[in-house]
């Protein structure tokens, strides 16, 4: 009896286990998801047009082919309490992206100060965001130094551009980029044939600036380490050695200097972390994308931009 019982228990267990494999899947119903306006746009002091994306968020489980504008939305931009204008949906924009809401700023001077954006939608409600265009902070000096030293991340000897400025005493946020205009090159001098072509060089900008975050062609940083002081930033041109015409590239370079709102800094930082973490899956801490839209999701920000040539 005992042996029979024993064998019966073993047999039942083995048979039951054979019905399953080690990994089972289970479909879940869609979880609670709130439809909201999705807004993104930045007021740039030098631009003659304010481009605003107004759409809506989509459940992660919804099929996604391409984004759609919230065509029924209306938007109003205020400077302080004064209405500046109403961005209008441009479904066909020959000079840029389609389906953005555009506001012509050719006759409007975007002064430093506070701005407010209000977006209304008949079903998605009202979304409001506030930001600022910071005061301009001039660069005092820009210097190009050949073979300056070892780029800290690329670990190669590199040329560098030294940018000096004086940080005002309040909290400030910056973006500094070295960008290049397109270069037209004749390969007669540099290659085996005489093809003439236009290209954007790979600069490989690098920096050891404490607390700075590397972004494409530059860095994003705060004044935490030098608040209210004169400060010099070193940007290494670490990728230049791989290019075929470094002197031409250097001629094409300019500094793009943005004094950015805190919202812009927080958003760009989180977006950069998000981009960097893609692909690591469960091995990476998830990144919270910064949001300053009340009643919606996204970012409305401002920045004071200047361009400087490389001497």
């Amino acid at each position, binding site marked *: 009896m005992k042996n029979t019982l024993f064998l019966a*228990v073993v047999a039942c267990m083995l048979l039951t286990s054979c019905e399953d494999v080690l990994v089972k899947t289970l479909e879940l119903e869609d979880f609670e998801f709130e439809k909201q306006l999705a807004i993104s746009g930045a007021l740039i002091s030098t631009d003659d047009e304010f481009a605003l994306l107004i759409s809506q968020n989509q459940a992660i489980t919804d099929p996604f082919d391409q984004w759609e504008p919230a065509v029924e939305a209306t938007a109003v931009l205020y400077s302080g309490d004064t209405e500046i204008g109403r961005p209008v949906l441009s479904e066909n924009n020959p000079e840029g992206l389609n389906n953005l809401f555009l506001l012509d700023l050719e006759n409007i001077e975007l002064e430093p100060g506070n701005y407010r954006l209000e977006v209304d939608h008949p079903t998605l409600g009202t979304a409001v965001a506030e930001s600022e265009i910071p005061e301009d902070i001039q660069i005092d000096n820009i210097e190009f130094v050949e073979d300056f030293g070892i780029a800290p991340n690329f670990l190669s000897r590199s040329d560098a551009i030294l940018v000096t400025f004086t940080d005002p005493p309040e909290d400030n946020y910056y973006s500094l980029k070295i960008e290049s205009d397109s270069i037209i090159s004749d390969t007669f001098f540099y290659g085996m044939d005489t093809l003439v072509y236009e290209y954007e060089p790979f600069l490989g900008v690098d920096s050891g600036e404490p607390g700075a975050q590397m972004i494409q062609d530059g860095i994003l940083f705060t004044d935490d380490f030098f608040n209210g002081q004169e400060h010099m930033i070193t940007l290494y041109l670490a990728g230049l050695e791989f290019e075929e015409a470094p002197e031409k590239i250097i001629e094409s370079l300019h500094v793009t200097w943005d004094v950015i709102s805190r919202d812009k800094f927080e958003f760009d930082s989180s977006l950069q972390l998000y981009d960097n973490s893609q692909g*690591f899956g469960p091995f990476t*801490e998830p990144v919270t994308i910064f949001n300053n839209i009340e009643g919606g999701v996204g970012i409305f920000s401002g920045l004071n931009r200047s361009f400087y040539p490389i001497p």
Partner: protein
Amino acid sequence: MKTPRLLLLLGLMFILNNLSYSQETFTISGYIEDAGSSEALISANVFESNSKLGTVSNIYGFYSITLPQDSVYLSFSYIGYESDIIGIYLDKDVTLDVKLNSTATLRQVEIVATNAVKIEEESQMSRIEVPIAQIKKIPALLGEVDVMKALQLLPGVQSGGEGQSGLYVRGGSPDQNLILLDGVPVYNANHLFGFFSVFNADAIKDVKLTKGGYPARYGGRLSSVLEINMKEGNKQEFHGSGAIGIISSKLSLEGPIIKDKASFIVSGRRTYIDVLARPIIKASLAANGSEGNIGYFFYDLNAKVNYKISDKDKLYLSAYTGDDKFFVDFTESFEGNTDRVVTELGWGNFTSALRWNHLWTNKLFSNLSATYTNYNFGTLLGSEFNATIDGMQETENFSVSYDSGIRDYAARLDFDYLPSPNHFVRFGGLIMQHRFNPGIFNLQSELSVFGGEPITIDTTFGQVLVDAIEFNTFIEDDFKITPTLKVNAGVHFSGFSLEDQSYTSVQPRLSVRQLLPGNVALKASFATMRQYTQFLTNENIGLPWDQWLPTTKQVKPQDSWQAAIGFAKTLDEGYEVSLEAYYKEMDNLISYAEGASFFSIEPWENLVTQGEGRSYGAELFIQKKNGRFTGWLGYTLSWSDRRFDDKNFGEWYSFKFDRRHDLSLVGIYELSEKINFAATWVYGTGNAVTFAESRIPLLRQNGFGDYVSTVDIFKSRNNFRQEAFHRLDVNVDFIKQKKRHKRIWSVGAYNAYSRKNPFFLQLEEDFVENGDGTIGVETVLKQYSLFPIIPSVSYRFEF
């Protein structure tokens, strides 16, 4: 200032308390041991019935009780043992060694003595001892008896997830548990990515978990202290036990070296899936023109010897080593050329302790320990390519290895001083030298083409080794102020010193027990703790290469304080009931910053962020300790949150293991002397996980102008709750006493009703048929489970 005042108050109470015992007194002291094996019995109860005074034995079995001159009747009792009552006329100091008989030798069904230390008698709260005999009967995954998983069935203690052996105690993380094996810290308690713990139950004598109300002798971790003591080895006769299971086998041998003076125990365990699968893997590789091997195994080896030098001196030497190894090594050959790929992944602990007990007087006992512990993780990726092309030799050899770990040397001196039955004073100190290896890479390469001179690279890079000194000193007294009021008060002082930074901390500890009418104990406790070593892991997945790292100038030590209050009572039917509520706050918790991962090459200090945590809740524990049916019910209602300045917009969010409800039912039924039945059922609120619930388009800029990209967003971290977790495990032991040995067949099932418990979630695209007959794609959220019903059979023997 508060701490000196507290010490002054304690000292005053100590003096006043002793004055009341100023008549002539004598001391009875000795060791309490198992009659069969002479193993020391830890926390055995000693009670004098006339004076109603008592004490308990320490972890070496030593006890001391000082009583007035008179006839005394001492009762000695211990969990799972027959009590012994000895009457003597006390007119001088007496040395009295006591040997208790295990009930197992008398009657199989009796697990716990009825007159062991009662829960309401202790000032200590938030501490649970689970008899190892009970742990061995609890159903286990694949039949592998697992101490850590048994502890997960206690209130206030949670598992991380399906099959995982990590302990989450009162909202803390696994690194906040101080796991001591014979007093030596064990840094990695897991085998096989956490599915099994490193502790071999056959080599263990005693398991004790303290999750709050810490006495001053404990320190160094925020959430719990888990003390595991190895057996000493039978001093009377040679014995052995073993098991043959589905994934591993184990064997333990113990016996006297010199009868009644010295003994040993050796216990080993090894998995053998690598050995069993080797022929299949070799054949499979050979079929593809390759040769080599792929496999995984782990092993443990525990050993201990002890020697009684004299009645006043004992020496213990114990060691543990255990490793996990995963390896791939195969070679492809074609036309005389060979291509070999090697991958190795290994991690393991080595701990050892040399301890010397000395009895200075019949009231003063000391233990001096010298300990060593080492945890190392290493991996190797390599390839070798050798070819002859157009008569010329071409070689490409490449390997990269990575090592990280922690190594400690420590010395510890503890004293137990028992001046009167109303006082149990402990004091002592520890000094520990840590060496942290946060990760070093070694890259080797040799390239030789067209028969030329080889180009070689051999370079080492990584993070610098960090040396640190940690020390602590403590004093505590467990004293009875009145017959109903008992207090354990003390102070723990600790420090941590690096090359360029030092930290110190004063941590007051207090536990109070007031007996209420009806023998209900009201208990309350307060304790602060500090932790200087940090475990850097990611909340999503714990891996053996997660690192133990030091407090530094930049990374501050973790602190916590915890207050608890509760009731405890032993009911007539042998049921113990306790209800406790607790509140805990934690500071400087360490975590990977958003977006950071192990794969980042930045210095580790730049990858982490520090924040705060809080947890609170209530725990109900009803335990039946004797009779044919034993077991417990544990229920926890809890909340646990985290906040980091640079995570989740600086807002509080639920800890991943925030578990509103956690219920465990454990039942062991002795059907007869030949059949035991055991079952456990667990239920837990699902883990909080971060899951993007929506995606949005964003207008972005690069050097070419504007563009739109989409990002997946979530409103807050850990915004999504996995489904609730529940599972039934069952086990039946068939026991037969043979002529020379006892054999036990264990048949069990893990997850008996094959509940699809959540392991992880993933978005996937499924093909669906549209209404018009075309095939479309649908995005669905899928929940993956890990274990369906897993049957197990194992064979155990004891001789």
